[in-house]
Structure formats: C-alpha cells, structure tokens
C-alpha cells in the first residue's frame, strides 16, 4: 500500500477492483465504513462476482475476468477526452511532458522492438527523447505529439466506452457511472483510492493491470494524498514482510536485485554500476548493498574481497526460479530436495495435478507447518498418487503458531508491528526462526573444516544469534536495523548507512525501526495529532516511519497543501524545510530554488510519476495494453494480438479451448478460510462456517445445466476435473461480451483432502503460465466446463 489501512477513512471514493476486502481483508471495512458514514464516501466494487464487498458498494460493476486493463484503459480514455484529470498535478508531477524516443511506437497490438522468436521486446526505443546534453526533452504544454501525455491519449483512444463494454461485458450505463464517480476525485480536496489484491495481479497481464491503476491515480492527482494511493491488499498478514525480506528469487532484502551469473554482475563493482541509477534515491544503492553484505559476512567481508560479493548465490541467466519455474525444474528432475515453510503447493499452487507429479522427483521434502497438509501427503492414494511409486522421504516439522512466538509482522500498510509470545508452542513445535537457526548452526558445524571454495558462503556466513536452540531474535532485529561498526551502536536510519564497510544492515528499508532508543516496532502509542489516522507512534512504518508514500505530492508545486482537509506535509519558508504531520517522503531541505522541488517521486530516476514506463521497467510495454487471458472465449477486440506476447507459457498443450470449455472461471477466497486451508479447515469454528467445496454459478447457467443449489457438478478442463457442489446464486450473472452471452463461475481454492473438512482442489484447474514481469500464475480467468455429476 502506498497509503495504509486507517488512511482509507480519508477517502472520498474507493475503487475496489480485483479485490474483495470486506471478505478477505475485513479490517478495511472499519475504515471504509467510517469514510462512508462520516464523509459520504462512495464505494465502487468491480468484480466478476457480486461479493460481500459489492453488497455494501454504492456501485457494483461486473466485468469479465481478465479484462481489467480494458476497464481501466476506458476510464483513462474518458478522463483524458473529457479533461477530467488534474492538469496541474499531471503537468508537474508526472512524466506527461517528457518527449518519447522517435522510434517508439505501438502498432497492431505490439510495441516497438518485438522479437517474435524470443517472445521478447527490445527496450531501446522505450526511452525519452534526449537532447545533445543528454537531458530529457520536454513540452510543459503537453501539446507536442511525442509527449508522454499525447502518446498516452493516443494509446487509449481505442478504449472507447462501447469497445470497453463489449470486451468487459460491463453494462454501459454502470461503467459510465463508475468513471464519472471516480473522476470526481480529481477535484481539489477530494481523493480516491484504488484497492486491489490478487484479482488484479493473478493474470497474464497482472503487473500491467497494477500499472494501469497507477496511471489512473496519477491522472486524477490521487498519489501521495490522504485517502488516495494505489493500495495492494496483501494476501497474508505478513506477505508484505516476506517480500520486504527478499522472499522472491529476483530480489534480496529491500527490493535490491539478486546478482545474476552474467558479465554485468561479474564483480561487485560491475554489479553496482549496472544496478545503481545516477539519480533518484536509488543512487544510494551501494550503501544498502554493501551494508547488506556486511550483515551477511560481517568481519569476513572486507574491501579486498568485495565484501564477500562472490559468496552471494547468483541466478543462472537462463533459469526460471519463480514458483512455476521451480516446479517445472523439479519435474525435469533438476531438484533433489525441498524445504517448505507454511507452504502447501498442491492446494495453493496452480495446476495441482502437475505439481503433485513433479513432487515425486524429490529425494526429500522437509515441510514445516502447523498441521499435516496435502503436500506432506502428496504421495498417498487420496492425493491421486501410487505410494509404491514414490520414493520421496518426507520430514514433517511442527511449527509454532503466531501466538506461540515473538517477532514482527509487516502489514499491507508497511507497519512493522512487533508481537509477543502469548503461549508456549504445543508439543515439539518450534518457531520457524528457531528451526532456521538450528539448521544454520548445524550446517556451519558440518562445513567448519571444509577447504572447498564453494563452501565458503556457509563457513563465512555471520550467524551470531546464540548457540542454543533458540535464536536471539533481538540480535536479529538489531542487525536488520543496521549497526555502525565504528561505534558498535545501531544506526539511526538508512540515511546513516555507508558504502565503505563501516555499517552493516540486514534490510535497508527497515533501517530506523530499531535505533539506540529501542525497538520502535513495539510502540503502541495511540496519539493521532493530525486526525488523519497517521498514528505516528504506533509501531514503525517503513521507510523512516512514513505513513503515506510520495507525500510530497500532497502539496502543490509551490509547496502548499492542495487542500487544507488533505494536508500532510508542506514547505515552511521560515524554517526552510518541509514540515507537517507525516515524515516527508522527500529530502526535507529541498526548497523552491531547487528544480527537484517538483519531483515528488523520489524513487524514480527523474522524480516523476510514470505515465510512461521507460527502459523496460515492465517487460510487456511502457503502457498497459489489453490482451485476452491465455484461455479466453473471445477474440481480442482491440488488436490482432490475442495474448500478452511476452508471457511465459510452460505447457501450451494444456490450453483449454472455448468450444469444449465455455465458461470463464476464477478462483477466490472466502472470509472464513485462510489460503490453502490448513489453518482453517483444521479449526472447528471456521470449518463449521464454510464446510464444503463448491462452485458458484449463476441462476441462468444453472437453469441451462439443470442444476440446483447443492447438486454435485463436475468442473473440468484440460488440466483436471473436480466434483463439487453447485452454489447457485443471483450474484453471478452472465455478461454480454461482444454481443454474446458469457457465463462465469467461481471456485474457492481453500479445499484439499486433509483436515476436519475436505473438498476438491480448485487449483487442479488453473493454468501454468506466468505474467511477463512477476511470473504470477493466471489464477483468474481460465476456461472450464461445468456439467451435472449424474
């Protein structure tokens, strides 16, 4: 979230698209209802299903799954055509005025530079136009046809209301109402927020869908202001923390790229040169990266050995280490073992049948969880396997639950919140951290005498968290914050980190949460002097306890708040610095004399919000473009290119066709269950609330199929077949897509064959392909057939 949960109370309009927060993030309802009751805020729910969120929305707009870019693109077009955008904001705070490379173009559904053989773009034309001095050419009037603004307008001119509604199936009058209502937030003193979750991301264009939200918000001047922002509602309470800490393969902590075994990363110097931009806040990257290396190897990391850079694992340039990539490598027999921490792939991962088969190639599996999961028992007949064929040795380690251990969790609002242990773990259960700690100590012991160079990363790994079975979590926390090695004291924040090896820091974005004054994540002070719900002394928000990101943009180009009701920070001419309610997301001393005064987006090299994403920051285009989901019942109405041309398709033979599999399916979660279900299907209270697996189908489709609520039906496609109960509902209505009636069905993905309640695995049906940028699977918008079980 660029903003945070409580900030939702400041909004005038919440556009909820690709999310069902009242079910899956109920805390959102507290603040959105407050906005509704106290400010008369409007709530818009855009969803293929009429959800519990839709039930409290002022406007519900149905759409066909996977047509989000068309939906948002049409909004962008309407807003531009009707000049409903915030001109001053757009002209000053975005790259709208920048001129784009002469050779950049978009034609027949493709951006310039496409290589059909490699299914890749060459990004060289996705650049700004620069003058001889290397400066970006601009037209502040935004009139020049090669400005980002004009190109944006041109790009989305195809997204007319009629065209969009033909694609999305949204009734036209509802769509117009959505646009007009949300466009109101461009007005001074008004702000609109976009809330999205996996309904936005789990598509073959997932990253671009989120980009489209950003463009819309920039046009309406909604970034950096209270009640605005692009807000990702994370799927788990601490998924924010896990990505902050480098859970994904391509980043280490603090969103710094993992080195790749390629010449550009051959040594520390090369890596830093390649990865560090000249301008913007990321120009500080060497400080963060070297401090990270110091945290990894401490005294073993010296200037002479590149601070241990070569000990860091490097990615193979050709290998795919994303979720599906790993399983495909496993299927090929390239992996021997697997450590699973709270992961249940054959329920939670896509193409479950395929993943179950792949797991058979494991020699060993270590699974750490609270309960026996389906994945731990992937080799059983219940799972569909022949136990005699499976040689995998499975080790099950009981894990402590959140109440049985201490540590921090990071909310979607980036708050690092410390939690204390309430009760002792049951039986032999241990905290994940302690399990890792014991494993690390044991590995270090095993490799202590090794002379082999490849064992140096383990030998030299700095692991000073105690020698017993319990990890000294306080030491871990201090290391994350960062320590000044010359004084031995914790650094104040990441502004104090150095690139000469004099500081260590486990995660630069968290630096500042544990200064000498103490662990600020443990704070629980409930003062809110601004009344904006910032609660600056409640725990600690990264970065630097900032509650609203890009908050410089809450003030106008002269440094005054756009509107007194939505004031966050402002330029104080007397003090010559930025002051206000929140920690400025800006260098506080940059004043009106500095050209950077109007560059609020400090993480970007140019300081501007990007309507146009240059340099291949997104691999599938500088502007989001609508392509049909990989499996779609219709032809792309906007261009001859049917699917996102750069997505990774692992198993093309499994593409289900619309003739045999006519219904668009989405997977989703319900309030009452948690993720792959182990935590709730084993809890009698939750098991009681949603006891059985079902498929949601509309009344009209049910009539066609001759199915009543509660009847058993088969849902199937080329990847699998599941037998579930039909949940016939008024809330799933067929949509008119390009003049043809299309049905959608919904499948909760919480069920499996273990636990108090069991049910079929929805992910047996989901496809094996990844978004071009994140490789997130297309869990929403695939094709199935539904028929009566008998």
């Amino acid at each position, binding site marked *: 979230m660029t903003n945070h949960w409580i900030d939702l109370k400041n909004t005038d309009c919440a556009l909820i698209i690709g999310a069902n927060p009242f079910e899956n993030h109920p805390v959102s309802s507290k603040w959105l*209802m407050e906005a509704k009751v106290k400010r008369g805020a409007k709530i818009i729910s855009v969803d293929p299903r009429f959800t519990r*969120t839709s039930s409290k929305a002022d406007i519900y707009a149905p759409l066909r799954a996977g047509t989000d870019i068309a939906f948002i693109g049409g909004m962008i077009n309407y807003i531009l055509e009707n000049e409903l955008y915030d001109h001053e904001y757009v002209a000053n705070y975005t790259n709208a005025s920048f001129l784009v490379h002469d050779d950049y173009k978009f034609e027949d559904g493709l951006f310039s530079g496409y290589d059909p053989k490699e299914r890749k773009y060459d990004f060289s034309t996705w650049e700004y136009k620069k003058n001889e001095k290397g400066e970006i050419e601009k037209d502040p009037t935004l009139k020049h046809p090669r400005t980002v603004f004009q190109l944006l307008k041109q790009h989305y001119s195809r997204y007319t209301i009629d065209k969009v509604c033909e694609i999305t199936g949204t009734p036209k009058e509802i769509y117009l109402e959505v646009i007009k209502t949300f466009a109101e937030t461009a007005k001074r003193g008004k702000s609109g927020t976009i809330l999205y979750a996996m309904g936005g991301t789990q598509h073959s264009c997932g990253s671009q869908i989120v980009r489209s939200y950003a463009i819309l918000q920039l046009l309406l001047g909604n970034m950096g202001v209270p009640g605005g922002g692009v807000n990702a509602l994370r799927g788990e309470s601490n998924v924010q923390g896990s990505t902050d800490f480098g859970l994904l393969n391509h980043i280490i902590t603090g969103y710094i790229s993992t080195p790749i075994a390629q010449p550009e990363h051959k040594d520390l110097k090369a890596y830093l040169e390649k990865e560090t931009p000249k301008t913007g806040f990321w120009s500080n990257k060497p400080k963060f990266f070297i401090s990270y290396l110091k945290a990894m190897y401490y005294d073993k990391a010296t200037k002479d050995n590149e601070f241990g850079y070569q000990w860091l694992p490097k990615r193979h340039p050709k290998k795919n280490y994303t979720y599906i990539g790993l399983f495909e490598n496993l299927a090929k027999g390239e992996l021997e073992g697997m450590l699973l921490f709270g992961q249940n792939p054959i329920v939670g991962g896509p193409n479950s049948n395929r993943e179950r088969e792949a797991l058979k190639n494991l020699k060993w599996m270590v699974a750490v969880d609270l309960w026996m999961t389906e994945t731990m028992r992937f080799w059983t007949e219940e799972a569909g396997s022949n136990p005699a064929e499976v040689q995998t040795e499975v080790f099950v380690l009981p894990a402590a639950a959140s109440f049985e251990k201490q540590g921090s969790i990071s909310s979607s609002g980036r708050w690092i919140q410390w939690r204390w242990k309430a009760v002792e773990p049951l039986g032999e259960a241990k905290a994940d951290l302690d399990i890792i700690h014991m494993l690390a100590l044991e590995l270090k012991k095993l490799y202590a005498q090794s002379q082999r160079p490849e064992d140096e990363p383990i030998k030299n790994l700095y692991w000073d968290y105690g020698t017993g079975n319990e990890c000294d979590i306080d030491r871990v926390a201090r290391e994350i914050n960062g320590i000044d090695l010359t004084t031995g004291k914790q650094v104040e924040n990441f502004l104090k980190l150095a690139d000469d090896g004099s500081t260590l820091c486990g995660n630069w974005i968290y630096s500042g949460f544990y200064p000498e004054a103490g662990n600020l994540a443990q704070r629980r002070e409930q003062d809110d002097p601004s009344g904006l719900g910032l609660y600056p002394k409640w725990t600690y928000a990264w970065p630097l306890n900032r509650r609203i990101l890009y908050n410089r943009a809450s003030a106008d180009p002269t440094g005054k708040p756009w509107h007194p009701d939505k004031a966050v920070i402002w330029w104080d001419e007397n003090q010559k610095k930025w002051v206000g309610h929140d920690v400025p997301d800006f260098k506080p001393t940059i004043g009106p004399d500095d050209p950077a005064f109007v560059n609020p987006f400090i993480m970007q090299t140019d300081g501007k919000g990007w309507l146009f994403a240059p340099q291949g920051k997104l691999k599938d285009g500088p502007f989001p473009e609508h392509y049909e989901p990989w499996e779609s019942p219709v032809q792309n109405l906007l261009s001859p290119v049917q699917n996102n041309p750069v997505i990774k398709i692992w198993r093309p033979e499994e593409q289900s066709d619309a003739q045999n599999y006519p219904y668009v399916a989405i997977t989703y979660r319900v309030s009452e269950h948690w993720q792959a279900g182990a935590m709730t299907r084993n809890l009698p209270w939750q098991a009681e609330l949603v006891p059985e697996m079902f498929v949601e189908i509309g009344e009209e489709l049910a009539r066609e199929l001759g199915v009543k*609520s509660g009847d058993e039906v088969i849902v199937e496609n080329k990847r699998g077949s599941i037998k579930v109960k039909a949940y016939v509902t*008024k809330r799933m209505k067929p949509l008119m897509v390009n003049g043809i009636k299309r049905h959608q069905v919904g499948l909760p993905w919480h069920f499996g064959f273990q636990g108090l309640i069991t049910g079929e695995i929805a992910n047996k049906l989901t496809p094996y392909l990844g978004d071009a940028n994140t490789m997130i699977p297309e869990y929403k918008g695939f094709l199935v057939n539904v028929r009566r079980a008998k």
Partner: protein
Amino acid sequence: MNGMFIDTSLCVGCRGCMTACKSWNELPGEKTTFTGSLQSMPDTTPKTYTLIKFYEHEENGRLRFDFFKQQCFHCGDAACEKACPEDAIYHTKEGAVVRNYERCIGCDYCQKACPFNIPRIDTQEKKMHKCTLCFDRLENGEIPACAQTCSPGAIKYGNRDELWEVAQKRLAEVKKEYPKANLYPSDKNALGGTGVFYLLINEPEFYGLPAEAKLKTTFSLWHDVVRPLGKIVPGLALGATVIAAVTNSVKKQREEGHGE
C-alpha cells in the same frame, strides 16, 4: 443502561462475530454441510448463539446481498424470564438476560414464549442456551465479543440512549439507499426496552421477525390469564373444601349437641 445497536446497513457478513462468540463462550464448532448458500446453518443452535443469515434478492432491479445477525434481544420485559418456571432466567445488573445453569431444566418454555424464538435447548444436556450478551465480559468492563471484533462497526455497544440517537441518525441517512430501512424494535420502549436493537434494511418480516416487537398474544394469554388461573382455581377448590370441612364439622357438632 447500556445496549447494543446492530446496524445491518454496515454489516459485511464476514462472520467474525460468529467466531468471536464461539471463542469467548468456548462453544464447539458444529458439523455442518453446504446449505446451498454461504449461510452455515438454517438457524441458531444450543452451540451457536449468533448466526449471520444471508439473503440474496433483487429490489427494483438492484441486486442485494443482505445480512442479518440473529441473536437474543435481551428484552427489558423478557418473556423468557417470565415464562421460566424455575426462575432460572434473570437480568444481570448490566441488563443481560442470562440463564442460571444449575436452575435450568431445559423445559423450553422460554423458547416458546420468546417473541423472536431465540432460546435453544440442548436436548441431551437438558439446558437452555442463548446469547448471554457476554455478561461475563460486561461485568469486567469489556464489551461483548461480537461488538469487539466487528470490523465495519455494524455492532456497537454503549450507552443505550446515545446509541438510539445514533440509530435514528443512521436511519435517516440510509433511507435513500434502503427505502425500507427501519429501526427494530421501532419503539425504543418496546418489550421494556430491548438491550439489543437493529437498523434493518428490509421489513422485519423479511428476516422472519414479527412485524411488531411485542410479547406474543398467546404468551400473554398464558402468562397473564392461564397461569394465574392455575393458582386461583385449584386454590379456590382447596379453599372451598377447607370451608366445607369447617362448616360440616360445625354442623356435625351442632347436630350432636342436639342429640344430647
């Protein structure tokens, strides 16, 4: 006096209240099956004190997905308390209508008397169970578990008079969105003032509630006529026999006196 205000126009149906209730009251999860909708069971049970009921319907072409939190109203003038032959039901000083476990014999009179059909008998255990308004939290200055957990603020607990004003204000606000919205009970003092009252977005009958919140006629007939008769008539009969015994013995003495 404190009270609970349930604003169904704010309820998102997340059912956090149901889990919180079971958690605080240490109630077991029940074995359920798919009911054809998200609703977990048709009705509350001795082990499920509160139930979110789900309603899908269309009103003037607008699709609606409405929720109703079924639970005890904690009436000031509680039919269950009056009906209980064992004096097992009483008001705590915080206004919760609760049942004394030891005294309760599970006779079910309370359920039959209740205008809202709330008390539930565990036929094995032979005890009545229903929402307690978390009286054991109230006693300790806490608010009921469901109100505590309710994210959208649909369940509010606090000063009853103030909440009633909040409710009236909310009613005026939501009338545009929900023309059939009403406060239930509509009269603040109905049933001696209910500890729990609602802002409903459909007519009461939509949720299976009586149109008007009042004691049932049959209950009044039973409680105010039949039950007193039950004491008066046999009493009169007994009295008559006593008098008869006296008068007869007097007569006998007199006759014997004559005889002497």
